[in-house]
């Protein structure tokens, strides 16, 4: 592993790109073209770094990798601590993948304030990647909440007719949930004395407090996810947002909720998670069935896909809170799959919307005749959303259902009906739009996809099938982290040395001292008592001495041997 701060580079590179875009001067056409170019180049470069990191990433361990620690707020014991494990790596790649696609998607469809649009997406990328890399609670919160700023502007400035309502609803709903999490985080800080995520994961929190804290964090992640009944902001936001905004919203922002559950709720409040799991199951089941039915009744394409998102996220929460290997892996995979498939579906809607400027399902029909290539690509994503075996959608849904079946068969049964419902509305959508008669002359006259649209959709189609055929590319990387997570949930003490290497600040000197983990209890790891750090150093020194002595003894033996 290199010492180069790759994660910080990935996080802040888009910000630097955005800064340069703001500096561009010249006539309007040049500014627009240059802004697009710089934006695309920056985000593609970032994607390149992401792939490079995947190559360097060691899939055999649950340790946090590419860790960076910088003193930031030492008096509050908050540090700039970044790192990724298998779970977050997946989402980092997803964020890096979708940003250039969003910028490409707006290539020909955004005409007003293009420069600001690109800047907003680059800033958004910074915050998204930061959210997934942050290993300190406060840092996580900062990135998590900062996402609201660019997203609010994206919906509000470039959105549809009811954009103001949608933007406010999105902002206030999410903020309301998040601030409760902030209080929860501060209570957690009071209890444990640090907001360092690895340390918090190992901390033992009293049961009563866990319940309250779980609820505080749940308020935030459930809104972000979004879970029924706090999902109502999502259809509005999706319908009004520009295509790129919808893609990022569905592709990445919703995943922050699921990631939060995996990073905070499960490992930090395991008992509360198990206690509240039935509630989550039922909320998820309601989400799956109810929103599927609602989706069935929609006449607006984007709204239908938005409701289907809520249903798909239902599988994610279902899987995560089973606290079984299959369930959690299924939940994560479902998030990745949904990130690609629903993002692509919104792009598909964007393709026809750009031509006809309506999202009414009934205005279209028979597109297979004049747009055969579009019909093919759309089919791949439609089937992915349905969860056809061979596409990525199947793997996640299947695993999540397997997980829930081990825990609660009734819930599993009800959740499975959602698969049927999901198929029915997606097939309905596809039939009405792509097959059937060509009712309207303008719809029949639409041209097939252009080059830019190819560039955005074909990679996603390939990914959908690739992940469906070879899910192991994701699974292999997340499974050690998932196992580690399960160990934390089920409160098993680590047999081997703890897999985290927290840097603990020595309160006297203010210097971060890396501690070689021994089998000391987690309480000690995070307590403020100064002797621990010294003790650890002494222990290390002792070990070193022992080793030296042994070596001396060995060499003496060798000497003796030579003498003989």
């Amino acid at each position, binding site marked *: 592993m290199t010492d180069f701060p790759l994660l910080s580079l990935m996080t802040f590179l888009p910000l630097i790109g955005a800064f340069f875009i703001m500096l561009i001067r010249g006539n309007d056409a040049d500014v627009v073209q240059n802004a697009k170019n710089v934006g695309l180049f920056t985000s593609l470069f970032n994607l390149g770094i992401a792939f490079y990191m995947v190559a360097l990433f060691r899939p055999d361990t649950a340790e946090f990798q590419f860790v960076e620690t910088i003193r*930031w707020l030492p008096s*509050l014991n908050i540090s700039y601590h970044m790192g990724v494990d298998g779970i977050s790596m997946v989402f980092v790649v997803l964020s890096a993948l979708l940003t250039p696609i969003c910028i490409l998607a707006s290539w020909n469809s955004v005409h007003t304030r293009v420069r600001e649009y690109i800047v907003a997406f680059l800033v958004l990328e910074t915050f998204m990647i930061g959210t997934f890399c942050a290993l300190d609670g406060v840092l996580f919160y900062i990135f998590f909440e900062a996402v609201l700023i660019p997203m*609010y502007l994206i919906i509000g400035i470039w959105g549809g007719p009811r954009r103001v309502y949608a933007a406010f609803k999105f902002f*206030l709903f999410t*903020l309301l949930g998040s601030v409760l999490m*902030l*209080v929860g985080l*501060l209570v957690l800080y009071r209890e444990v004395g640090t907001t360092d995520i690895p340390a918090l994961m190992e901390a033992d929190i009293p049961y009563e407090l866990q319940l309250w804290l779980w609820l505080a964090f749940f308020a935030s992640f459930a809104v972000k996810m979004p879970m029924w009944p706090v999902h109502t902001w999502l259809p509005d936001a999706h319908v009004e947002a520009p295509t790129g905004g919808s893609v990022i919203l569905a592709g990445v922002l919703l995943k922050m909720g699921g990631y939060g559950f995996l990073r905070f709720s499960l490992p930090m409040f395991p008992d509360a998670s198990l206690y509240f799991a039935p509630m989550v199951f039922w909320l998820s089941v309601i989400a799956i069935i109810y929103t599927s039915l609602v989706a069935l009744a929609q006449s607006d394409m984007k709204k239908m896909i938005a409701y289907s998102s809520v249903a798909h996220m239902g599988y994610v929460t279902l899987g995560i809170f089973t606290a079984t290997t299959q369930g959690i892996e299924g939940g994560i995979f479902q998030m990745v799959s949904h990130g690609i498939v629903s993002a692509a579906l919104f792009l598909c809607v964007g393709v026809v919307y750009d031509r006809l400027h309506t999202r009414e399902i009934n205005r279209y029909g028979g597109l297979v005749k004049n747009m055969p290539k579009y019909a093919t690509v759309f089919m791949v994503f439609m089937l992915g959303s349905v969860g056809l075996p061979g596409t990525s959608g199947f793997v996640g849904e299947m695993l999540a259902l397997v997980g829930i079946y081990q825990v609660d068969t009734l819930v599993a049964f009800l959740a499975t009906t959602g698969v049927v419902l999901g198929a029915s509305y997606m097939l309905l959508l596809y039939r009405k739009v792509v097959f059937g008669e060509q009712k309207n002359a303008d719809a029949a006259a639409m041209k097939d996809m252009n080059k830019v649209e190819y560039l955005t959709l074909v990679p996603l189609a390939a990914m959908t099938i690739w992940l469906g055929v070879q899910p192991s590319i994701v699974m292999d990387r997340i499974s050690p982290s998932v196992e580690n997570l399960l160990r934390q949930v089920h409160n098993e003490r680590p047999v081997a040395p703890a897999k985290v290497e927290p840097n603990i600040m020595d309160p006297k000197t203010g210097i971060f001292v890396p501690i070689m983990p021994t089998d000391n209890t987690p309480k000690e790891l995070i307590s403020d008592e100064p002797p621990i750090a010294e003790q650890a150093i002494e222990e290390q020194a002792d070990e070193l001495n022992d080793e030296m002595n042994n070596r001396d003894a060995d060499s003496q033996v060798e000497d003796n041997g030579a003498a003989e």
Partner: protein
Amino acid sequence: MIQSVDVFQDIKTAMPEVATAAFALWLLVFSAFKKHQAFAVASFLSCAFLVGIIVVCFGMFGQYDEPVVAFGGLYIQDYFSLSIKMLIALGTLISLIYVYFDMKQTQIGRFEAPVLMILSMLGMFFMVSAHDLLTLYVGLELQSLALYILASFNRHSYKAPEAGMKYFILGAIASGMLLFGMSFVYGFAGHTGFGVLEEVLNGTTYNVGLTVGLAFMLVGLAFKISAVPFHMWTPDVYQGAPASVTAFFAIVPKIAAICLIMRLLNGPFGGLQDQWVQIVYALSMASMVLGAFAGLVQTSIKRLLAYSSIGNIGYALMGIVAGGADGGASVVVYMTVYMIMTAGTFGVVLSLRKGGVAVEEIADFKGLSKTSPFHAYAMTLFMFSLSGIPPLAGFFGKLVVFKAAVDSGYIVLAVIGVLTSVVAAYYYLRIIKTMFFDEEDAGMDEIQIVPYAAQHGTLVATLAVVVGFCVVPAVLIEYAEVLVRSLF
């Protein structure tokens, strides 16, 4: 604590105040005899003087590791008072820049404005250095009287005398209450010096007279910081005063008053914490709630900012409720950040003129993102910062306050605080919406941007602090922890 011995040493200890008083009087006489450009010259000299005062306070730092008490126990100088004085002088400097350019545009500029501001600042200096109830009162009155006049400075507007009158009458009632409370305290404790009070009150059991006195004093002080339910004057005064004077009201006096309250409650009345915590708790909660909800229906930007300041005082009071060094430090951080954000917000408002006057209505911001993108983006960042959205400075202010409250076990108050911040976010967002999402009306008057480099420089500087704060938040937060140590 060191007691200074002779009058020269006393003067040396009180150097900032002595210099300010001398300068204000000299400036008054000097300007009165100056025939041309008196306003410009007085403003310029005052700015130079304020820079000088900041330097003097900074230079005095090294000598006050231990608090020094002067003038027979009436006056105290320590880290805390020196730092807050620097902050106050900085706020006055920013306001003076605004006032100069604003009054130059509206042509109501007179040299009394800078003189009054300097005198008001002198009062604030005494407030943060008060070590006796009488010093406290005199400082407070000096500060208030200058502000009353400033509020009605625009004689040509019918709103200005109303603002001044309301401010004066309500302020006088508040001062009466304060004096009444002080007389109770004096009656039951037998002294007005903070040092003596601290000794006498420490470890006292519940005492009705003292509690009544304390309650009345807090009422009087709550008026000055416009905490609910003693906030009624704020929106009217903010609206009636010239915009730049409003900026001064919003930025500076509250810092002095909050710091005074901190010293008073933690020093002499530290022993009565159980009593005053309840009062401050209620004030804090009421201010946050009313500040958030009443702001929702405002159409005037100045009234909106008035309610915003009421809400913000609620958060600052939360830090006082939390108590202890952490709570105190959080108040200092919060007020500093609040000062910068508000200064920036007013900087934007004052840069946009409609018919020569600073914009009044929120609707005037329509389409600003097209006509002046820089101001629109600056305003957006200030609004997000005021709503407490990370990574902007306002978030860190809220973070430390909430943290202090949670650490002291006031979780309910913290929850109310975060919930009201969501409500308040709505009206901050509404301004952003007006600038970015609304289309410009065809028949609207053009908004002119002021051409003054100094004012824009101030705006850029505050913007840089608000955005750049997240890179090195430790600078301010750790510094605040050091400086409140002299209080506890």
